């Protein structure tokens, strides 16, 4: 039982940045940003390449370098996707699909020749605190997850954080007050994708490998976690909605592990997620109308 709890905790911590990214783009800004899938993979592959490059370096320096590079890699994916929308005037859904296609090729190139990057021979940069008696990697992941909760809590209280929520409420708003709508969109999608890229690196470090297919199903995972998080926090005040992401992903993996324990084959779990989201959205729509889909968060 304790082992299962540790697995749930580790998987949740790995995915917390990804869910925060999805929370910004999909929930606050209400943009169907599927490019988080490409950012997740690109962040993982860039992180893995840098990890191999940094072999033998002090762990703290490697950790900081890999962290910043995986964040930048994700942000780069977001930049491409958002520029396609703001400059080429391609609708967000289509631009994110095009970005996935574009980065699928880049990711294949990066994972040559074997199709994946193995990290078994590289040092684990999450072992910064090796003197901890047990689970030093997990403790580091928990610290990172807490760090992301705090950073996002602060971000949602800034002008930029509020703008993400305004964007989801009324995109035309900014043009009346001399605020750059393109800047808000690009900043939001870049931050969202940067967080996804970082989650990719955490996942690669945890599993000791990264490949071009590791992002498949991540958008649905994000939506499911956000829906679960909103169910749990829906009745509470807006100022704690920063907990939607960590609680949502925690619930997600609790459900997943419970199903696994009762012998459920996880290859059907995607269908369960889709059904869950479908049921929740249908009930919410019937109860309160389309407005119930809106999530403010700040």
């Amino acid at each position: 039982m304790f082992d299962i709890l540790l697995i749930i905790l580790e998987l949740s911590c790995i995915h917390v940045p990804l869910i925060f990214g999805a929370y910004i783009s999909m929930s606050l800004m209400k943009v169907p940003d599927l490019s988080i899938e490409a950012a997740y993979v690109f962040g993982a592959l860039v992180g893995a390449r840098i990890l191999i490059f940094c072999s033998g370096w002090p762990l703290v320096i490697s950790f900081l370098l890999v962290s910043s590079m995986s964040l930048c890699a994700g942000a780069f994916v977001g930049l491409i996707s958002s520029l396609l929308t703001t400059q080429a005037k391609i609708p967000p859904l289509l631009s994110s699909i095009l970005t996935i296609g574009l980065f699928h090729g880049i990711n294949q190139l990066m994972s040559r020749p074997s199709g994946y990057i193995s990290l078994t021979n590289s040092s684990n940069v999450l072992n910064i605190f090796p003197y901890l008696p047990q689970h030093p990697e997990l403790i580091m992941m928990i610290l990172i997850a807490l760090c992301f909760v705090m950073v996002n809590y602060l971000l949602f209280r800034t002008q930029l954080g509020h703008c993400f929520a305004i964007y989801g409420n009324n995109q035309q708003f900014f043009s009346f007050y001399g605020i750059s709508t393109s800047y808000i969109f690009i900043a939001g999608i870049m931050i969202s994708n940067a967080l996804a890229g970082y989650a990719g690196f955490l996942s690669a470090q945890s599993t000791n490998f990264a490949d071009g297919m590791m992002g498949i199903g991540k958008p649905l995972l994000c939506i499911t976690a956000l829906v679960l998080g909103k169910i749990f926090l829906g009745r509470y005040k807006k100022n704690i909605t920063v907990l939607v992401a960590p609680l949502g992903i925690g619930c997600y993996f609790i459900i997943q592990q419970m199903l696994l324990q009762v012998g459920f084959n996880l290859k059907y779990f995607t269908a369960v997620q889709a059904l869950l989201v479908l049921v929740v959205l249908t009930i919410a729509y019937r109860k309160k109308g389309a407005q119930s889909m809106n999530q403010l968060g700040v």
Partner: protein
Amino acid sequence: MDNNYCLRLENLSFRFSPASPHFFKNIEIEFSPHKLNFIQGKNGSGKSTLFRIMQGQIAPQEEISGVFHFNDQIFTITNNESSNRSFGSSVALVHQNVTVMIADQFTFEQNLQYAAMPKYPGLSALSKLKSLPPFVETLGLDYAKPVDRMSGGQKQILAILMALQKDTRILLLDEPTAALDEKNANLIMHFLQELAKTTNILIIIISHDQQLMSSYKELSAFFLVEEDVKSKERRVKRVDKELF
């Protein structure tokens, strides 16, 4: 109170392209401070074009010339974007449909703070609420109330206050009472009259509601934009006496 806050448009000429005939030719208008300046005219007469010119929104193919006098300053209006922008930066337009101007899931106070944000919002906290004209306190507005639970008149007041958050000196309103019932229309007109009386903000309103305008004629100036049948040019004349 400073009476220099009148706006004088001198020798204003405008056409949609160098090849097209003049839409406005050497027109002169003087809008008065501390009054409600109403502009009337048929559809297509040029009221909205006049507002667009005052905002400095001139398309590249359009041709414009003229001089604007405002607050002891002279603005030479040409196709040069920067000169138009410097005047346009003190002008704010409140649309007929104010729902596009507000984030209705947020509170009255938050909307005011959002309107004051810079062009590129950063990681700093929202700025404190700018002091509102004193008479706003008497309206009994609940600043903590989400805007989607407010009446149409209250939303209109919010949109006007939001437009004033960025050093606005000239306030343009496009049919502010068109979508409101009589009670809310009077609330807005009373609000605008107080705003004109107690501040140096110049208020110009496009309106077709003769009955409403007549109720506020004591402290108002009336202008008519009309088409000259022969030349097809638009003229603007003051019609205070002819109207009522």
